[in-house]
């Protein structure tokens, strides 16, 4: 069951949106009747489970995975573009439990950022999430941003779980 997915440790404050996509979007197993399209990296990594390789699969273009010293699986999704830049994320898993999600590369040229005003604070800032880790199931947001994150993170997760990408 999904119990193993429930624990999550966030490292940095800039990762909330990524976290939002972590738990619900990790199929525990390929959907019934669907075969695993590509050989998945080892999951679960029970004691003695040996990785067959810790480098990128030869055909996996930009996404890659590796095992850390402690036997954690680290999967890096491909850079995903959006109109103001691009983003690339890495997920760290122990078995199917996500330990961490991190942005490994992000470029944004959003000109709107320049207009941000720190003085503009309202009562709703009381619900600002500040680096505490957001335990959310789903995210609403303007399409391009979340879409890019989703694709980037999902690619990493698909990689880690050997889940066939949807058509």
């Amino acid at each position, binding site marked *: 069951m999904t119990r193993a997915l429930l624990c999550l440790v966030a490292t940095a404050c800039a990762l909330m949106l*990524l976290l939002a996509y972590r738990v619900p979007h990790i199929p525990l197993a390929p959907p019934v009747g669907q075969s695993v399209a590509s050989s998945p990296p080892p999951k679960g990594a029970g004691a003695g489970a040996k990785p067959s390789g810790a480098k990128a699969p030869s055909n996996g273009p930009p996404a890659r995975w590796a095992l850390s010293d402690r036997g954690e699986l680290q999967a890096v999704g491909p850079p995903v573009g959006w109109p103001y830049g691009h983003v690339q994320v890495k997920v760290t898993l122990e078995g199917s439990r996500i330990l961490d999600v991190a942005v490994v590369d992000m470029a*944004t040229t959003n000109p709107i950022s320049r207009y941000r005003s720190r003085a503009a604070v309202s009562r709703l800032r009381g619900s600002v999430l500040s680096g505490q880790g957001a335990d959310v199931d*789903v995210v*609403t947001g303007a399409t391009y941003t979340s879409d890019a994150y989703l694709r980037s993170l999902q690619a990493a997760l698909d990689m880690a779980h050997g889940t066939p990408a949807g058509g």
Partner: protein
Amino acid sequence: MARRLAGDRAAGPAAGAGGRPAEGLRSWVRQIMGTAISIATWTGDGGLPDATAATAAAVERAFAELRAADERFSPFKPESQISRLRDGAVRLERCDAEVREVLALCERLRRDTGGYFDAYAAGPDRLDPCGVVKGWAAERASDLLLEAGVAAHYVNAGGDVRLRGQPGPDRLWRIGIADPHRPGELIATVRASDLGIATSGIAERGAHVLDPHRGAPAVELASVTVVGESLTLADAYATAAVAMGPIALDWLAGLDGYEALLVAADGAISGTPEFP
């Protein structure tokens, strides 16, 4: 089934205590309508032995519905009914009932929004119902899942989310609202069940939302999130609000059954009085 909605001012790991993501949560993602569409389902322990296969089949039918909507409505596909209608290759009476339904909805929304929601915002020969189709299609996909017995699920069509049921007996879905100025961060979380929640903004396609009254892109609001019973309407209201700019707050506050959170281009946040 009762609609439930709650704000979460104390977000953080501790807030999830006792309400952790439940067992039986599974998700599927497909690329449809030019965006990533996610469906997540929750199945309780009392599920039937074949619940997993039945759920997976229902999810695939829901995705098929979304693909069909894309084929019908995309103004970017030359053979879609919307494109053929726009190009004069087919008359409205010959279009599918779904197309007539959506275009009637567009007309109703144009009136309800004082013209700020306008499928013809880009010009009389530039029919584009995209502002309503994504939410409408996600709502239908969710309906199909419910009819198939998948009581607890959500459909997230590129940020337009329809929630049904609850992911566990004592738990509500937790929705994060993305910060339009800081990719990767949230400005708020909402806990809810049986609701639609949609966000529109200038980050969505750059400054893509046209103010039909000026014919120019709307730029004052970075994003508007609308929550309410119908995802279709929430999506359209959010799009209209971005086109309205700052006056949208008063308009949104006057809507019955819908609440909104607005983020201005300068970062200022405002909400309707009942926004959680």
